[in-house]
């Protein structure tokens, strides 16, 4: 099947036991666009990410990337195709120094296909990347063990892993949660820069002000259903969204 859309999802559903985590969610994303996903807790946002990136297999529905179906492929296969994600709960390699965390994606088959990335200075590339996401090189932060780093650093380590993969689609699962205001302020420009480079960014976020600076379209999930879609202004004016967040009047 040939398709000009970049990342396309049709009718994705997933149940865990009796709980329907996600039902019949679809969206279509063009290259370079950025999508925000919001919704109350337990509305299926992270499940959606897990389904796209292959960590969980969908019950029904399909995922297409660059016109090819990637439904149910293994997470590392999908990462190598160019869809990278961060985890809501930062999953760092706690026993390794921070920069060694980045060596692992740098060893992936995908990165090896880029010119000059096959041999040599992986350590330097890793430390440069970490400096880019705000690890202070002068105070040797990249050399510290991951378990000794504060939470905000671990979240940015997740971002650095996506950047190391040189992914085309970067899915950020509540990247800003648990970050301080100043960390958010310094991380936001990095995401904007990724967008300028032509990356497709998908953001799950509760901090709407920051989210709206990045994304140009928005979908809202509630109890696994997509209840609204459109530009941020349209969506936030919708009655269904107000009802989901604040409760309806009946």
């Amino acid at each position: 099947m040939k398709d000009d859309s970049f990342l396309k999802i049709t009718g994705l559903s997933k149940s865990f036991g009796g709980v329907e985590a996600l039902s019949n969610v679809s969206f279509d994303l063009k290259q370079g666009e950025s999508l925000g996903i919001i919704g109350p807790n337990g509305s299926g946002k992270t499940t959606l990410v897990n389904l796209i990136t292959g960590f969980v297999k969908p019950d029904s529905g399909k995922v297409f990337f660059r016109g090819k179906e990637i439904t149910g492929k293994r997470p590392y296969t999908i990462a190598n195709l160019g869809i990278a994600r961060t985890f809501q709960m930062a999953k760092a390699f706690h026993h390794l120094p921070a920069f060694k965390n980045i060596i692992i994606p740098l060893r992936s088959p995908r990165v090896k296909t880029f010119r000059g990335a096959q041999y040599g200075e992986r350590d330097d590339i890793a430390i440069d990347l970490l400096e880019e996401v705000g690890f202070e090189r002068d105070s040797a932060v990249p050399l510290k063990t991951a378990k000794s780093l504060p939470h905000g650093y671990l979240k940015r380590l997740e971002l650095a892993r996506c950047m190391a993969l040189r992914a085309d689609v970067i899915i950020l699962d509540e990247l800003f949660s648990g970050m301080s205001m100043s960390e958010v302020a310094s991380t936001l420009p990095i995401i904007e820069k990724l967008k300028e480079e032509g990356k497709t960014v998908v953001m799950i976020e509760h901090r709407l002000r920051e989210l709206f600076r990045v994304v140009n379209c928005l979908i809202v999930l509630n109890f696994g259903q997509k209840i609204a879609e459109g530009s941020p202004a349209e969506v936030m004016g919708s009655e269904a969204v107000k009802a989901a967040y604040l409760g309806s009047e009946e």
Partner: protein
Amino acid sequence: MAKIRREKKDSNGKYRKERLDRGIKARSDTIFALTSYREALYLVVPRAVTIIGLLILPLVLDIWWTKVMIMACVIAILALSWDFIASAGMLSLGQALFFGAGGYLAGVLNYYWGLSPLYTIPIATIAGATVCTLLFLPVLRLRGIYFAMVTFAMPLILVRIIEATRIWGGIEGLSALTPLPNLWVSAYLVIAAVFACLFGFRRLMDSDYGLVLRGMMDNDQAVMAGGINIYWYKAQTLFIGSAAGAFIGAFMTHYYRIVGTSAFSIDYSILPVACTVVGGPGNFAGAMFGAFILVPLCEYLRAIGSWRIVLYSFLMVIFVVAVPEGIFNYLERKYHQFEHWVKTG
């Protein structure tokens, strides 16, 4: 730098105890700055003592203790293999499978085709590792205790199959196999193998390749998110680990000149784990150190007869309770620290 302080008083005044880490400037885990011969010696001596000490042992020990040393090396290799597989996040309780697979392959090749140990040992190492890896392929997806349970059952299943089908000599096993030339060859062959495993595994874990394995121990999912096929890496790890186990199994077949179902016995699964726990997991030296404590201790206690196992088990519990980080890790930590009194008033 100072970590723990204790205080004392005497006629001259008050003192407190200060504990310092050794003064080698470490930029990271792998980058040191050596500034003197003393510092170079500080790093070289522990390694040199291990290597030279082990090379001298067969020359100074009598025949019986040389055999004990060989047994310690055998268990050390199984423990190193266990520690290596565990460093990639796989908890194996089936070292006996590797040992038995290597042992039986060498035995069969020698018994039915008359191949000399020069060929049977290398062939059994590679073929044994292949067989073990293939057997574990379906369960690579399991993690933690579930993986451990399957690996534990695997050698026991093979024993029953051999008993039921009476292949390869059934319960009696294959005997009168070609021996190794003499005790010296045996002793130095296992010593060489221990060093190859110890330093090879350590080098491997320090490389970028080992980094992926260490990452898998910390977090499978993050490695997958990094675009790495963890099952392929796990299979490779199992192959390397089981090759070490199969080698030593093949060695023991020719050393004992017999191979039977006892090659799959639980001892070979449990003792390596015990050694690693007593010595300290995670750095390979601990696993080897543990084997060189537990195996000679077990032999030494033979003198006291049937109380041996009771005392042996009791000592093992004491080791684990008193030094939970492992004896080697404890000694290493102490080696890198020193304490002195500082006058405070």
